[in-house]
């Protein structure tokens, strides 16, 4: 078995590529990461009624997220207790019960085994139905609609696990002050031939790749008058949440501004093309936001990409009133293959014309067939091609950007004076690998216990 401490040395910025290709490491991750962390399993808006369910994965395990008659959300392994067959076969839907198609065992939406064919003749009424319910994931909790589950009963509460990330989720993703979000119907799914952690660490804070990886998109965007006009003022930052020893999450491309005026002006300009309903929505949304966040001397108003440990990412672009949010999950399928799931979240109370325009914009950018994501996929395919070779494994990847300057950047005093460093988490420059080092620090801790 690989010595993780030797292969992952995030404190010195060295990660051996074997951790991205080794099957043993993947199996350790299934045991030590995906069973001990809070994992995103869905959004409450997609399972509003009794019997509504959806399927997702927790690591390699397929689970059913279902709302019971008591309105509680429960999460079960999609697995019959008799021979392990699946009991739920649709991506989502509504059901009164789940029935195995092998021998016909039937479970209700609270996981209880209530139907066993030939119970008297075959089992002589001896089978204990009450201990043969669906295997239930013990910990289920929501943060403002985002549902998480965890196999470890001793895991810290979800609020503590998310920590300072909640501030950024509140401001850039969830927007309860304007009525919250809904996840719209439709889910993108596509394969990426690479290790899931490389996608996570890219979303955590790899802004360094954007000018090169996405050069073609930025080049044609620059031809667009609107794109030039909508460019926000101010400087991009990133935040490392959980620094230096907690659960690492990250948000990148943050902009801190004292008022919403600039964003309001931009969104009003673009809303005019969508009609009066959109204009009214923009005015109403910023009015409510200003009332709600009035006490904050500066507010975070943009955040491009973010990551919640271990495998949930979000893309929020300018986080304006006309934007959808992409919710992305990286499902590991072995060490060298990832199945990407992407949903779209929109402001629940926005008019239809705004929701449609927001989703169209998301699809054209960071999306399975967009102008951004496929170029990432290409780069990961090329680097993964190199992972399986012997010499590759002898040379660690370099994660040293910003190492040693986490709290002492040359411009630290300037940022402190502006109040930026008072924001939750460790605020740092747009280009830095601090969040990636954090990611592998916590990942190695879970695998080694150290």
């Amino acid at each position: 078995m690989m010595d993780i401490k030797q292969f992952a040395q995030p404190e010195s910025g060295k990660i051996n590529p074997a951790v991205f290709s080794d099957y043993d490491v993947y199996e350790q991750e299934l045991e030590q990461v995906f069973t001990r962390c809070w994992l995103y399993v869905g959004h409450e808006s997609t399972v509003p009624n009794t019997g509504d369910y959806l399927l997702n994965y927790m690591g390699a395990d397929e689970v059913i997220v279902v709302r019971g008659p008591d309105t509680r959300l429960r999460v079960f392994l999609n697995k019959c207790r008799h021979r392990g067959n699946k009991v739920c076969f649709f991506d989502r839907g509504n059901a009164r019960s789940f029935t195995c198609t092998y021998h016909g065992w039937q479970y209700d939406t609270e996981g209880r085994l209530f139907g066993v064919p030939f119970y008297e003749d075959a089992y002589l009424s001896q089978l204990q139905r009450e201990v043969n319910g669906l295997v239930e994931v013990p910990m289920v909790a929501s943060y403002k609609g985002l549902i998480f589950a965890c196999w470890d009963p001793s895991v810290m509460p979800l609020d503590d696990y998310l920590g300072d990330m909640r501030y950024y989720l509140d401001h850039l993703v969830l927007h309860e002050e304007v009525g919250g979000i809904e996840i719209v119907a439709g889910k993108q799914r596509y394969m990426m031939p690479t290790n899931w952690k490389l996608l996570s660490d890219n979303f955590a804070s790899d802004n360094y790749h954007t000018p090169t990886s996405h050069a073609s998109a930025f080049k044609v965007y620059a031809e667009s008058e609107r794109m030039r006009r909508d460019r926000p003022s101010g400087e991009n930052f990133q935040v490392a949440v959980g620094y230096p020893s907690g659960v690492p999450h990250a948000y990148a491309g943050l902009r801190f501004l004292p008022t919403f005026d600039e964003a309001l002006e931009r969104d009003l300009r673009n809303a005019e093309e969508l009609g009066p309903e959109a204009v009214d929505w923009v005015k109403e949304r910023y009015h409510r936001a200003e009332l709600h966040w009035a006490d904050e001397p500066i507010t975070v108003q943009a955040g491009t990409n973010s990551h919640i440990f271990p495998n949930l990412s979000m893309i929020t672009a300018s986080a304006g009133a006309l934007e959808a949010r992409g919710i992305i999950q990286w499902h590991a399928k072995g060490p060298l293959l990832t199945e990407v799931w992407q949903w779209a979240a929109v402001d629940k109370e926005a008019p239809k014309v705004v929701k449609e325009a927001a989703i169209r914009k998301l699809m054209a950018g960071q999306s399975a067939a967009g102008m951004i994501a496929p170029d990432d996929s290409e780069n990961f395919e090329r680097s993964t091609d190199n992972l399986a070779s012997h010499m590759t494994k002898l040379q660690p990847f370099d994660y040293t950007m910003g190492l040693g300057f986490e709290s002492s950047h040359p411009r630290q005093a300037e940022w402190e004076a502006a109040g930026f460093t008072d924001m939750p988490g460790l605020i740092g420059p747009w280009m830095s690998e601090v969040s990636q080092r954090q990611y592998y620090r916590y990942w190695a801790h879970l695998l080694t216990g150290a």
Partner: protein
Amino acid sequence: MAAPLDLQPEVERFLYYEALLLDEGRFNEWLDLLTDDIRYLMPTAESVQSNPDAAAPEVSLSYMDEGKELLALRVRQLDTGLRHVEVPASLTRRLVTNVLIVDAPADDELNVASNFLVFQIRHGRHESQFSGTRRDRLRRVDGGWKLCERTVLITQPVLPRAVSIFF
């Protein structure tokens, strides 16, 4: 209006020529086959056990939902030479079959269904296949045909790779 079957050869010729342009990377010529008001839609696929009480979704996420302006922007992106996922260009071969003129919704328009299988190869060895069906609306323009609406229904619920080609 019933399907005008005598137009079958013309319609097939249009679709095969379109496939040839795409396979040869002649994207600007391909854009000329699209009307200015085209809607190019590629929905996602999910299996849903429906709740009869559930209302139809107000909006939904697709893979693509674009008009001419955005499709042209994509072609310009390819033309930069910096669209890494198409450098070097994918080798593609499009097989278009089951061409069926469904009906004629207007004097100068046809609804046409067709199936496709696209082989895509990158770097000489990474092979993907996309299979699907298309619901097209063709419009007679200046004696020829142009595409004014396309819905691409990919058979695979999980796409084999991120999409960098047109269907």
